[in-house]
């Protein structure tokens, strides 16, 4: 379901999704959005990643991960916790000064998550992008560290 990995290249949004092109930025990705996984010449994996697989207007973006295909498949096969609904303490209007409100998102609809501060995954905030089926994508700032979210959904292997 949600796969923890480090991404070294992501050819979308002018490449700004990744800052550390050597070690990679930490991401939680949805395995259902991963297509055509291949072994990269650098030893990791390259694939086409679809932000919203249910929207026919959404094309795939080239994504490179430091992990092997076998590792990503193993991580996709884990038994997730809270698969039905992930509880996210969400800041209204993505405003850190407001009080977080719990929202419930089916794990299947989560497209990606990453630390608010990309250099510190133990920080207090996490960005989560989820889809309302094929209709809409929402980028939500949530309270809690990225590492805590990974542990909460039991994503790391």
């Amino acid at each position, binding site marked *: 379901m949600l796969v923890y990995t480090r991404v070294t290249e992501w050819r979308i949004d002018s490449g700004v999704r990744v800052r550390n092109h050597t070690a990679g930025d930490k991401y939680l990705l949805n395995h259902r959005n991963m297509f055509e996984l291949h072994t990269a010449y650098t030893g990791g994996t390259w694939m086409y990643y679809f932000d*919203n697989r249910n929207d026919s207007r959404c094309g795939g973006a080239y994504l490179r991960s430091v992990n092997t*295909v076998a590792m990503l*498949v193993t991580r996709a096969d884990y038994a997730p916790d809270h698969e039905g609904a992930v509880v996210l303490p969400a800041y209204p209007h993505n405003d850190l000064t407001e009080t977080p409100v719990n929202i419930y998102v089916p794990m299947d609809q989560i497209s990606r998550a990453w630390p608010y501060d990309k250099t510190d995954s133990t920080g207090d905030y996490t960005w989560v992008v989820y889809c309302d089926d094929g209709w809409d994508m929402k980028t939500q700032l949530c309270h809690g560290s990225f590492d805590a979210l990974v542990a909460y959904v039991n994503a790391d292997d």
Partner: protein
Amino acid sequence: MYIQLTITRFADKRDSTRRVAPLDGTSRDIVLNTANMSDIIVDPADATKCQFKYFDNPRDRRESWAYVHANNTVAEIIAASDTEFHSTMITLPIHKHNHPDEATVDHTMPVEAITYVDRYNPDPANHCWICYYNAAFKRREVLCHYSMEDIPDIAEHGSTTSSTTETTATTEQR
């Protein structure tokens, strides 16, 4: 899960209802994904057969369904639907340029991406056509270095369990 069905009619708009061609005679074996089926009913004329609607790309609201007649029972389809996949992803050796003489490259994709598997007429024991979708966005038809019968086997067990020498040799070459 995938299931190999004996199709007698595949009334789709995309391929002008030619998936069961006159050269096939009265039927053609095709592997379909049970997740893409809807409205499965027992054939009113013969309880050992069934009819259903089939969506090549269920994620795309523009995709209309095909009407399929099969020489299989509804119970067989339900049994296949209830069978668990070995993994959430499947890895298949795909020939470059869809040419059987060219090298293969392993493609890994979610199991639900595959919509159907069709026989490769010139060499059905070693190759098959795989049709899959990259999300709702792009349809791909690629030549795979497995027989059509191997694909449900790999999806269920993670590898082929066929005892034929040819198929086993093919698997080992990977």
